[in-house]
């Protein structure tokens, strides 16, 4: 490491090799790779929990796991997917792409970058390890509502500590991104000339810095309620269990957008490339993202409409929540207008971006339905909600991440991925993810609560269908794993500008880019405004 920092004239020639390279690295590309590989691993661990959940729900009756184990699996599935798969994947993409999209030599705070990644393996080892403790892992849902969460056994303090570590990691990553974007842009690249992926991450990073400490506060209060005799959430001591939900969702709703705004950025990169046409309404896209971020702070209680709020509160949160549909709609319309009169081709990244466009919109529709408080009294805590947030998070966030991987993998590795297999992965995923989640809307409407390990027999047919979709969607991801590994290992040589319609600085670097890129800032002529012809 010292060689890298001291010897400025021989970039990348003397860094440690083997395992030590990865442990000591401060290079944004290495750290990006680490984040992405970690996220891929967590995606399969969290996915394997989902497979057990769907297997237990294949038919009525308890066949595979105890109800307590089932609750552990649903809790862990969510924690792993949210904090272990989706968020680190976006941070990995930010690490890889933001410096080379804005013409920076690296992230502004490289050593902190190393720390923010290397906290994660410890945090998740701790979290997953609780499943082997006596009494089992956390089983009160990822939302960790008291008093139920306080019934957790030995695992309790370990879970809280793991959440603290994840929070520290996220906040450090976010600070790094903000500082990098504000200080290391290429000369004359004003904020409103940045690529949209950079813009969405810029706003996301502020959301992270604002709300992760709130989560830390909430879980710390749980900790003191359990071990130090406080009564924040205990009515008998003057507290209120509902207050936890308010604090949690003040974190939780911005968290939802933390998991979708970078996806908006990715889709805004991919669609113009394969439509061979400038992004429609660049400025309004930026303002829409900023509006969504602002609104995310004043809608939190729509996660708790049935908790017993005053009428005025219910009305306020209903109206603000419905308002979110406006900037979200603007984004969808802008993407559609970008496609209009384009010259479209359908490579795998584009297919994922288009699937995002359709399926995220379906998640948006069910979101508007959930915003209607009277109807939400029925939807709340039912499978309708499960369907809604999986459309937003799987076919939204996860599909965007997969699209991003196909889009930039040739840039990262210097190899083209196998397009045929990529298309197989896409079509298998898209078909089966709908078989998996679409029926869940109807299960919820028909009265099936979420987070139950067993169900009345009239829900059997759609649960079976959903499980079959689940197994095949899960199996389809093995294609993804194979494509990624084989592209890393070899393949046709990728050119600097991998895609015909691609614009932006990253395509001016060779594939793969040198270990240290943009050690001198690029000229304005080189980077051009990525969304202007």
């Amino acid at each position, binding site marked *: 490491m010292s060689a890298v920092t001291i010897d400025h004239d021989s970039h990348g020639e003397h860094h440690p090799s083997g395992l030590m390279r990865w442990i000591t690295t401060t290079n944004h590309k290495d750290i990006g790779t680490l984040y992405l590989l970690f996220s891929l691993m967590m995606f399969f661990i969290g996915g394997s929990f989902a497979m057990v959940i769907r297997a237990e729900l294949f038919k009525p*009756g*308890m066949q595979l796991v105890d109800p307590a184990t089932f609750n552990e699996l649903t809790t862990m599935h969510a924690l792993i997917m949210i904090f272990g798969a989706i968020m680190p994947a976006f941070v990995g993409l930010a690490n890889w792409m933001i410096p080379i999209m804005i013409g920076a030599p690296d992230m502004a705070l490289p050593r902190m970058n190393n720390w923010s990644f290397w906290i994660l393996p410890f945090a998740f080892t701790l979290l997953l390890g609780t499943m082997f403790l006596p009494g089992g892992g956390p089983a009160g849902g990822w939302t960790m509502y008291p008093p139920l969460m306080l*019934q957790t056994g030995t695992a309790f303090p370990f879970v809280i500590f793991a959440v603290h570590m994840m929070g520290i990691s996220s906040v450090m990553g976010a600070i790094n991104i903000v500082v990098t974007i504000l200080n290391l842009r290429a000369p004359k690249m004003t904020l409103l000339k940045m690529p949209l992926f950079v813009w969405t991450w810029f706003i996301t990073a502020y959301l992270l810095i604002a709300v992760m400490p709130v989560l830390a506060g909430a879980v710390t209060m749980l900790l003191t309620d359990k071990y130090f005799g406080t009564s924040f959430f205990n*009515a008998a001591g003057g507290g*209120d269990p509902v207050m936890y939900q308010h604090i949690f969702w003040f974190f939780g709703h911005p968290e939802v957008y933390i998991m979708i705004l970078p996806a908006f950025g990715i889709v805004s990169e991919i669609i113009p490339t394969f439509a061979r046409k400038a992004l429609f309404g660049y400025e*309004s896209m930026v303002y829409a993202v900023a509006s969504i971020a602002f609104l995310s702070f004043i809608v939190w209680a729509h996660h708790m409409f049935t908790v017993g709020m005053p009428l005025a509160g219910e009305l306020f949160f209903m109206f603000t929540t419905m308002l979110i549909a406006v900037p979200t709609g603007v984004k969808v319309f802008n993407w559609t207008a970008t496609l209009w009169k384009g010259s479209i081709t359908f490579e795998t990244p584009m297919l994922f971006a288009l699937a995002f466009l359709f399926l995220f919109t379906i998640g948006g529709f069910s979101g508007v339905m959930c915003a209607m408080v*009277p109807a939400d009294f029925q939807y709340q805590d039912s499978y309708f909600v499960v369907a809604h947030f999986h459309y937003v998070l799987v076919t939204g966030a996860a599909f965007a991440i997969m699209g991003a991987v196909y889009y930039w993998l040739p840039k990262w590795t210097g190899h083209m991925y196998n397009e045929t297999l990529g298309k197989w992965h896409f079509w298998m995923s898209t078909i089966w993810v709908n078989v998996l989640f679409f029926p869940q809307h109807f299960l919820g409407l028909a009265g099936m609560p979420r987070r139950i390990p067993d169900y*009345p027999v009239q829900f*059997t047919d759609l649960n079976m269908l959903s499980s079959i979709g689940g197994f095949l969607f899960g199996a389809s991801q093995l294609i993804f794993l194979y494509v990624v590994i084989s592209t890393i290992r070899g393949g046709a040589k990728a050119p600097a500008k991998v895609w015909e319609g691609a614009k932006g600085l990253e395509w001016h670097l060779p594939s793969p880019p040198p270990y240290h890129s943009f050690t001198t800032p690029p000229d304005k002529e080189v980077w051009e405004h990525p969304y202007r012809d």
Partner: protein
Amino acid sequence: MGFHTIKNAARAALFLGLGLAASAAHAAKLIADAKYNLPEGVTPMSREVYDVHMMVFWVCVAIGIVVFGVMIAALFMFRKSKGAQSAHFHHSTLLEILWTVIPVIILVAMAVPAAKTLVRMADTTEPDLSIKITGYQWKWQYDYIQNGFSFFSMLSADSDKAAQVDSGIDPASVKNYLRDVDHPLVVPTGEKIRLLITSDDVIHSWWMPDFGGKTDANPGFVNSMWIKVEEPGVYRGACAELCGRWHGFMPIVVVAKKPDDYLAWVKAMKASGGKYVSPYDGSLEDTGSPVVFSDVNYNNVMGTPAGAVVPTGSTVSPAMTAAMSKGASAATSTAISAVPAAAAPAAWDMKTVMEKGQQVYAQNCSSCHQPDGKGNPEMGAPAIARSPIANGPLAAHIQRVLKGKGIMPAWGNILSDADIAAVITFERNSFGNHKGDLVKPADVKAAR
């Protein structure tokens, strides 16, 4: 190529769009009519909720047809493989204003009726009747405040048995699997009933789809919702908020009776000396097909055989029977284990009491203390096997069960003397404990 290809593609896209719209509308119609939609329900509010739901659903379908139609058309018309050249526009102020303003108008149009419904739902004032509902892990308590009686309602024994891991019982063979309780809530039709909802331990949520929604049960706070059931019948719902291990196993059953029948039931309950009087009139066996959501109009199809058999354990006096509507006998629908007020078995011998105790243990104690009595110390449920309490003085054991400790509830408020006596007998003579005590209900009564 060029022009003709694009024209053909446009025509194809138009046909596809129309076909898609038609089939989407057709599918939506099927869905709206089918069992996989929200039930319209049987209260004024549930019907309004259903209307709000269908309104926003159709609005979404309509917007979806337009937006997806345009997207699909673009994907067919502007393909590079068909020779499409990309245009150079990148914004249009008019369009951007339009697609900001039009959604706002649509949203306001939807918000107004939704807000009106919400205001009506929130008005729980001036009820004809108030019933307090308390959630427990994992049962409901229904307290008829004005009438001075209350009872617990939990998963029926046959569902419970079938729901054990690898029980070997086919859930389809159990009637109303996971949707039946031992003691349903009974309400009158046509009256405004305020439900006061709270919890004794963790958060639960009382969800009855046919009554238009759910309300959370928060410990230490009381929420309210109101219902006015229009149709007599049997309605089924479930706990909707994750509440621990048996969250999926605490259903809700409400029997709605005509006011006269309801009053007769209340009278019978008051006279029963703490025993639950079944609201069913003997014809339950003929209703409640597991594939329908509500067994509506149950009373209307009543054809009660005279002298229906009354299962042991729910003895109902002839006087009470006479007080029941239409002179029908009462018959509990489910097995008698863990019935709070179940009468003691006639013969109080070791074998009978151990069997009863085992049933009570399985339904009330095993989820924390585990079926093998080894406990779950991490959650604050110590082992019963070889424990100082179960192997120490009897008086202390009775006190612990009656009063509870930590997360263990005070079972004295929940179970009958006979149940407590039986379960203590069972605990002192199982799991490697050999005290040999045969506890009598009178011992428990004396210790209260």
